[in-house]
């Protein structure tokens, strides 16, 4: 089981900030493909991958990064702190 977290407009489009699921996706990108088919909101949130950033166990990663034994994967738009 893996925790999936959504932030900012991804959270708003999907309608929830967190969900928990079973996956055998080998990479973050493969996980995104699985997620896209979960609902219309998911599909909308992940429509343009150029606007998606991801963190695996709270470390920023590229979308082709392996999932490994990740316990927590987060998806969010480019950050706008400061």
């Amino acid at each position: 089981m893996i925790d999936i977290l959504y932030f900012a407009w991804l959270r708003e489009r999907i309608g929830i900030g967190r969900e928990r699921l079973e996956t055998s996706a080998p990479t973050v990108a493969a996980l995104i493909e699985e997620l896209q088919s979960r609902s219309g909101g998911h599909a909308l949130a992940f429509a343009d991958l150029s606007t998606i950033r991801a963190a695996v166990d709270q470390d920023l990663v590229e979308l082709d990064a392996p999932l490994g034994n990740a316990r927590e994967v987060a998806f969010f738009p480019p950050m706008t702190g400061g």
Partner: protein
Amino acid sequence: MPVRVQTAAFDAGAELNGFSKGLAAGAVVSFTGIVRGGGGMTAMEIEHYPGMTERALTAIAEEASRRWSLECALVIHRYGLLEVGETIMMVATAARHRAEAFQAADFLMDYLKSRAPFWKKEIGEAGTSWVDAKASDEKALARW
């Protein structure tokens, strides 16, 4: 390298004085970010990723300390609802020489802008909208 992530308002001047007290360094640089008004904006909401935020800010502060001879660095960043004119965040750096203090603060800001998990939403008379990341912010990272 103290890093604080909080909803509560903080007093930037008091933080600067606390940071500077008893330093052996001669040069202190601070940056303060303030919620800018205009364009019908009335407030800002900042979302963050609890856990990762502290981790990312600490990593950025440690990287700054590796690159420059800092005596100390401070990062404070708020989240939640902020009114126009409120202080969003501050960084401070202390070093023996001014060039190091300036560069480290500039570096901290560039990384914090684009690599720490904060997202700003503007709240205005006409509704709300997420602030878009700027290409110039991503470009600024290439300087380091």
